[in-house]
Each structure stands twice: as C-alpha cells, then as structure tokens.
C-alpha cells in the first residue's frame, strides 16, 4: 500500500501556494537566491534581518513553508495533529498561539487533507488512492473520474476543491480570519447571484427589497408577504411568540402557514437563501439560516457571501498553517501516523521518527493509522460531482463576479429528488481554472445510486439551460404583443411563463464540452445541520479504551471529523474550538492573542467596507467594519462620520 503512495511521489507538484503567489515573496525569493550566490557576508545578513523586521511585523512572510522537513521531528511536543484539513489547521494555529508546542503532520505531500485544493494530476492520484482504500484517503469512496481528452487539460491550471465552501460576510470564520490576521494571506471574491431551479428554468433570487420591488413576476400580495417575512427574520429572536409553536415543526410549514407564501418562494427561502440540504429542517434552524443570509448582505457590499480565490478550504487551511508555523508549530508533510502508545506517550511516524507527546494526539479520520480500531463511525454521506466545463457561465453570474450558486430544490428534478442538489460554480476569474472555463461543484446528502442519479440529472439540466441561454437565437417562440409587459418604469419585459414553456421544447444544437468529471462519496460523522456536539470527540478517550488489551495503533487518539455536508464554512470554528477545549481545558484563550497591528495604514481607507477592484477582487478587508451590523441605509452614513477624527463641539 505504501508503494502506491510512493509511486505517486512525483505528484507532489503544486500550484504556487498562497505565499508564493505574492509579489513580495516572489521578489524576496529572487533576492534570497541572489544572496545565496554572494554567500553570506555578515553584513548582508544583518541587513536582511533588519528588512525582515521592517516588512514582516508580526507575521513575516514564510516562503518555503512547504519544505520545512529539514527541521526533523522534535523529541517532545505538547500536541500532535495528523491531517492539515481546515479544522485541524485552525486548531493548530490556535494551540500554537496559545503557547503549546505543536507538531502538525500530514500523510500527503500537500496541505488540506480532506479539503485540499488539488491539480488535475493530484486528483488522478487521489482517485486511485481512494479506490484502493489507501491510508490517508479514508472517509472517501467510490471515486469515478472521466477525462475525455487528457491532452486538453494542463494539470497545473486547475485547483479543484475536494470540499468547496462559501464564506458568509457575517460569520465566525470571517471574524476569526480577521482577528488572526490570516486573511492577509488570502484574497476574497464576492458572490451575489443565487438561482433556484423551477419549472425547467432558473429563477434569479429576489432576496433584497430592491429585487422584490422591481420584480415583475411576483404578485402584489406575494411581494408584501415576502417583505414581511424578511423584516420578521431580521428580528425573529425577539418575536418568539410568532414561531414558538413551530419550534418542533418543519420550517416549510411555518413559512406557508404564517406568511402565506407559495411553493416558489418557499423553495427560494428554504433551499437557496437558507441553503438547507434537507426538506426536514425545523423552524428555528431554518430561521437562523435565512437570517444568516440577510444579515450578511451589505456588510462588505451588496453580496451575501464570498469565496477565497485560487481555491476554498484548501487555501484557507494553508493560511492557518502558516499562522501556526509563525507561532512556532513544526510542520511535516508526507508523514503519517503509524501508531501511538498512550502509556509511554510515544507516537511513531511513517518516516521512522518518533515523538513524545505530553498532551494529546489529534487525528483526522482520513489519516488514521493502518489497522486503526477506534475511528468513529461515519454514517452520513455526501455525494459530490465536480465537472470542468468549457464555458465561462457568465450568463449566470453578476457582472465582474466569478461565481454563483444554483439550487435544485427537493422534487424539482425528473428523478423526484428527495434532497436538494446544491451547486457552486466558479469561473476562470476565481483562479481555479483557465479563463473561458468553469468548475461546477454539485453535491447532495442523498445516498448511493440515487445520489449519483440526482447529480447526473442536475448536471444535464444545467447543461441544457446553459445552451439555451448562451445560444444567440436559440429558441423559436413566436411572441406577440400580449407576451410583453411594459414595466412601470417603461422597460418592456417578456412574459416568462411562455418562455419557460418554450425552454422545455428547446433542443440544443450543440453539446457542452465537459473536460473533466469526478464523482465520489464522502462520509462524515456530522449529520446534515447537526450541531457538532462535544461528545463526538469523546470516542476513544475513555479509560477502558486505553486499558483495553485490544491490539490497536490508535489507543488514546482523539479523532476529529470528516467535513460535513454544510456548503458554507459555518461549524468549522465551533469544531476547532471544541477540540481546543478538550486539550486546553476551556476555549477562553482561543486566539486571544494580541496581534499587533503592524500595518494599520490600509485599514481606514475605504469607509464602509472593502474596495472592489477592477477584477472584482475584494482587496483589503476593513477590519473595523467586520463587526458592523448590516444596518442598511445608514451604515454608510455612519462610516463617513466615523471616518472623521473627532467630533468637536465648541461654544462659539
């Protein structure tokens, strides 16, 4: 089994890491090379140190973090973490900043583990490993890969996420990214378009007051109830009397009965705005998910979510690993756990080295040692279909953006899908594929063959729809005057009912070129919407485990989780905190570090949020507004006022 890993050793190829893509680093590397040639004059070194202090501040740039192996394994450490997935990386950084000595290893030659961002060649190797049930790839199964014309794919042009996620503008992970300064290693892009699939067409979401007001297809009473509902959600915690009777009932029932909304709106609210992966969601959970969306609007601009450029959780994991390394954590890639003995507290690794662990050893289920006995059950499934398509899909996106969300609600596909299919689409502008192409990430919590059928059908529907929309005069419907409304502001709008019908009759003249298709199942211990409960991590901690005579290499190992089905980053910080609590005792000093502000100069330049550059990138995130509530109208006014130094009052 080891041999197959070594066979793929040449696949340690990487796209340039977060760090390396930075101009300053590229220059610094060039400088470093030049310096090496001149050979260490004492003076030059001193100067170099000075420079580092001036530029680097608290978090110096760490090019070459990926090859830290020279250091070797320390003799002793407080915590060993196996697997550089997002939760584990956040945990490593938190512990390192708290002062624990951390040894963070990964059996792969790249960062990210279960949520890494991979090139095409890395994916190929990954699929082989998953299907051979190799160590380090547990938790994934039944991977199918289809690449019709391998010569058309230049491996390094792609960064495919195993677990793509989106980041709400108001969320705990974003706050943590800002607090820990990890956001400085990353670049975020806005995403404002959500579509809901309905009657064979994609409805763009009417989720703001502006959308509702200008929408020509909604009836007056629907508009009214939608607005009422939105207003209510903003303040639902204080209006318990409205929903207390529904706290054990489905969210869908609540919306229908209390707000008289019909199916299309319910679908939008539950599956798109709420991004729920099951129709059974209860009212309180549903409300909090809708609020999550609404309160994320206008925090940084008129978009609710963002994603990180060049790849999602894989990039963010790397960011936290860098932060951990800055705080003193030791990194070893390409190194897996062989065994741990809770009595001698010695952990042995695949490279033959060993370490004495004074506190705890945490391990991702995917990287459990060979013949592990205590890996928690992973009863829940997420099936993912990832496709690379030779179309930019800009038809579905807001101008200057490179991503969109599409949702197929429950029972909207010919397969009568029981669970919704959630889709994140990212185009070349997001840095994960060449311009003119896009990556489609489809997922569902349906299981087995049904899941695969649902995903394939959704993929077909997407293709059909894309063809219709990108074809110049793709369909042939005779529209007469009655089909055209004149909006009250004078714009003519074509009656969409008739168009919707014609869509069904439309037969595409061409096919979409699919360059890559990957289908796999991922297993998880976290139920959909399940809140991560502390007891999840209690597995294997009990005394009887330690004392049990069962021969196992993982006595006393605390297992973390496989990623959940949640499409956003929600839950990651909670999970990391729970693990942190297990090790430290409480979570009070979780990232409670005084990260000195070395470069405040950028911070207040853009009152009211982030500047949107020409490329649609977000540039610097304004620290101070991260906590600002999405007070719609007046937040900007406030921002201007805040920008002024001091308000002075004088008696004149």
């Amino acid at each position, binding site marked *: 089994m080891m041999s197959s890993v070594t066979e793929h050793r040449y696949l340690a190829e990487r796209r340039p890491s977060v760090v390396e893509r930075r101009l300053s680093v590229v220059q610094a590397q060039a400088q470093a090379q030049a310096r090496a040639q001149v050979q260490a004059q004492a003076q030059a070194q001193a100067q170099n140190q000075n420079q580092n202090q001036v530029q680097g501040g608290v978090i110096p740039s760490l090019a070459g973090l990926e090859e830290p192996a020279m250091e070797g394994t320390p003799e002793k450490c407080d915590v060993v973490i196996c697997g550089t997935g997002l939760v584990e990386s956040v945990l490593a950084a938190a512990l390192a900043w708290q002062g624990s000595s951390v040894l963070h290893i990964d059996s792969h030659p790249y960062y990210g583990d279960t949520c890494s961002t991979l090139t095409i060649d890395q994916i190929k190797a990954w699929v082989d490993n998953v299907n051979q049930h190799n160590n380090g790839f547990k938790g994934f199964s039944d991977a199918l890969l289809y690449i019709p014309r391998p010569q058309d794919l230049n491996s390094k042009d792609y960064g495919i996420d195993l677990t793509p996620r989106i980041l709400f503008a108001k969320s705990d992970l974003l706050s943590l990214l800002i607090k820990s300064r990890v956001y400085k290693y990353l670049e975020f892009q806005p995403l404002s378009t959500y579509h809901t699939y309905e009657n064979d067409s994609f409805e763009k979401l009417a989720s703001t*007051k*502006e959308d*509702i*007001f*200008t929408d020509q297809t909604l009836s*007056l*009473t629907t*508009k*009214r109830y939608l*607005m*009422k509902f939105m207003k209510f959600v903003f303040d639902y915690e204080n209006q318990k009397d409205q929903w207390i009777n529904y706290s054990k009932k489905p969210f869908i029932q609540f919306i229908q009965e209390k707000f008289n909304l019909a199916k299309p709106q319910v679908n939008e609210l539950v599956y798109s705005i709420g991004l729920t992966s099951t129709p059974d969601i209860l009212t309180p959970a549903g409300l909090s998910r809708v609020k999550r969306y609404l309160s994320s609007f206008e925090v940084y601009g008129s978009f609710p979510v963002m994603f990180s450029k060049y790849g999602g959780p894989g990039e963010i994991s790397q960011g936290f690993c860098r932060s951990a390394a800055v705080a003193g954590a030791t990194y070893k890639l390409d190194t897996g756990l062989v065994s741990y003995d809770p009595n001698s507290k010695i952990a042995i690794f695949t490279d033959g080295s060993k370490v004495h662990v004074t506190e705890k050893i945490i391990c991702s289920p995917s990287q459990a040692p060979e013949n592990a006995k205590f890996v928690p059950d992973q009863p829940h499934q997420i099936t993912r279909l990832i496709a690379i398509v030779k179309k930019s899909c800009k038809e579905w996106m807001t101008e200057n953006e490179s991503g969109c969300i599409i949702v197929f609600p429950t029972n909207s596909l010919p397969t009568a899908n029981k669970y919704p299919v959630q889709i994140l689409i990212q185009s070349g502008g997001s840095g994960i594929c060449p311009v003119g192409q896009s990556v489609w990430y489809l997922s569902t919590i349906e299981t087995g063959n049904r899941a695969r059928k649902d995903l394939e059908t959704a993929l077909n529907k997407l293709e059909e729809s894309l063809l219709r929309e990108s074809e110049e005069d793709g369909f042939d419907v005779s529209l007469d005057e009655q089909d055209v409304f*004149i909006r*009250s*502001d*004078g*714009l*003519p709008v074509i009656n969409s009912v008739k168009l919707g019908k014609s869509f069904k009759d439309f037969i595409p003249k061409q096919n979409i070129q699919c360059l890559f298709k990957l289908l796999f199942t991922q297993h998880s211990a976290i139920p959909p919407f399940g809140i991560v409960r502390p007891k999840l991590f209690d597995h294997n901690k009990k005394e009887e485990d330690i004392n049990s005579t069962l021969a196992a290499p993982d006595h006393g190992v605390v297992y973390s989780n496989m990623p959940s089905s949640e499409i956003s980053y929600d839950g990651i910080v909670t999970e990391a905190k729970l693990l942190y609590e297990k090790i430290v005792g409480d979570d009070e000093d979780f990232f409670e570090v005084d990260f000195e502000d070395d470069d405040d100069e950028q911070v207040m330049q853009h*009152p*009211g949020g982030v500047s949107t550059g020409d490329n649609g990138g977000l540039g610097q995130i304004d620290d101070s507004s991260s906590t600002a509530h999405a*007070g*719609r*109208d*007046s937040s*900007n*006014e*406030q*921002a*201007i006022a805040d*920008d*002024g*130094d001091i308000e*002075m009052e*004088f008696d*004149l």
Partner: protein
Amino acid sequence: MHGIKRTHLSKDAKLRKLEKDKVKIKTYRSLQDDVLDLKDSLVFDQMALDKTTKLLDLNPEFYTIWNYRRDILINYVLKDKSLEDLKKIISDELLFTMTQLKKFPKCYCIWNHRVWMLSYDKKISNWDIELMTVSKMLDLDSRNFHGWHYRRFIISSMESLIDKDDLYSLVLINLKELSYTSKMINRNISNYSAWHNRSKLVVKLFEQLLNADYTNILQRLEQEKIQNNNNNNIIDEYINNFKLFENLKNFINLEIDLLINAIFTDAEDSSVWVYMRWVLSSKFFYDKLSKDEYLQNLNKMLEKVEELNELEKDDNNGQNNPWCIKTTTLIKELIRKNSNTL
C-alpha cells in the same frame, strides 16, 4: 438619524474628553480671534486664506469665516488671473470642500461654498465631473438631501449652458437624470429625496415637451442609439422613459401602478405615501385630466389602499395601517370634492 443612536459618553469619559479637548479648544479660540481680527481689518492675502483653511478645517459650520474666505478669494486670490490660473484655483477650492464633505457630509456651509465656487464662472466648470462626484456621495448615503439638492443645481447649471432652442439636449439631460433617480428609488424605495427629485423631473419634462416636436426628439434618440452601438442599453432606457411622456394619462396610470407596487412592497414606508399624495392631488396632473379620468384614478387607488389595509389588519390583530387610513381619507375627500363641482 434613521434609527442610529448617538453614542452617549459616560460621565467619566466625558470629563476625560473635556480634559483632552482643553488644549484643542485653546488653539481653536486663539485662531478664531486671529481670523476675526484679520477680517475686521479687511486683510485679503495668502496668510489670511491659509488661516481660514485651518479654522474651517476645525469648524466648518462657521459661516462668517466662509464669507470672509470668499471675500479673500474675490479680492485677492482670483483677481486678475489667467484662465489657467483660475482653473487651478477653482479646482483647489473644490478639493478643499471635498475633503471637508467627506468628514461632514451634511454641513450646509460646505455645500454652499462649493456651489458658489462653481458658479464663479459656469463656463469653466466641469459639470460632468461634478455629477459623477455627487453620485459617489449619494452612493455612500443615498438619502443625503444636500446631495440631491446639489444635483439639481448641477443640472440647472448644465441647462443654462445650452441654447434655449436646443430642446433635444435639454430633454436628454433630464432623461438621464430620471434614469438615475429611478435607479436610486429601485435600490431603496424608502428615500424621500429621490421621490422628490422624481416629482421635480416629471413636471420639468412635461413642461419642456409642451412646445417641443415630440417625434423629432424621439427620432434623434433613435439615431443616437444607432451611433452608440456599444451603449444601447442605457439609450434604450432613455427612449423608454421618453415614451412615458408622450401621453400624460398613460403616465399617470403607470405611476399609479408603480405606487401600488411600492406600498405592497413596504406598507410602512412613509416616503412612498407622501409621493402618492403628490401624484393624487397635484394640480399639475388633474388640471390636464377630465373629471371622469381623474375620478377613475382616484377610485383605483382607493380600492388598492383599502385592500392593503385589510391585509394589514389580518396580520396585525385587526389594527389599521395608519398610512392606509390617512390616504383613504385623503382620496375620499378628493373624490367628494370632484364629484360635487359639476
């Protein structure tokens, strides 16, 4: 303002602030005395100008100093200057007010000074840039009525530079402005200033078109569209907006639809109800309608408002929506008045 509370400092913090401010107050007072002395002695020179800059920077609400600054500008800075120099001086002055506006976006004196500076010679001011600047300000706060007022000043300045007979250009400026205003209303219907601007523009456009050759202007717009292949969308919007003004009856019908849409979207937003009151009772409109047509409009609106109030009552334990009640009363009164006087 708009539900945002002023922060109140604790007693302790207040004292500390007062202590800290003492020095500042002292510098400010002496600077103020200085400038007022200079003003009384009619000193108009660079040193005096610089001092007003400093003082206004600290306190932009001090209108006497703004007046003095203008005296300095007229009697010294702008005096006997070449065109190039003038342009430079004006742009410096605009820059100064802009940094001030960023800090105090709702200070009358600053806006006023900007208007004065631009009016110094309307021909050399760049009005397109002004329009863009104020649009940026309104992006930051779409309800800053100073900004909206300033827009109307810019538009009328632009109009004043156009030949009175060039109706096409005059109409086009206002069509553009109408598009902008509609965009802002769509973005947030809760905006008195935008609705008010709409009312101003509507009347203005109807009046401009009163003596104009409607078809001729439409043809020129169409030509413009052909010439501007890249920018078809926006010109289409102007054309569609322009078509609204062909027929006043039609316009009012669409305006009523727009209003119904708005009150059903948000029944609690007062700015829409206020605009509705204007549409329903403005002499400008009903003078041009027959009695029957007018009554028809009123009844249509009445029916919708009553329907809305019923829905509101269902949702709010039988409580009426005050705006519905007020408006129902208004419409009933208008109907009564117009049915009596035959």
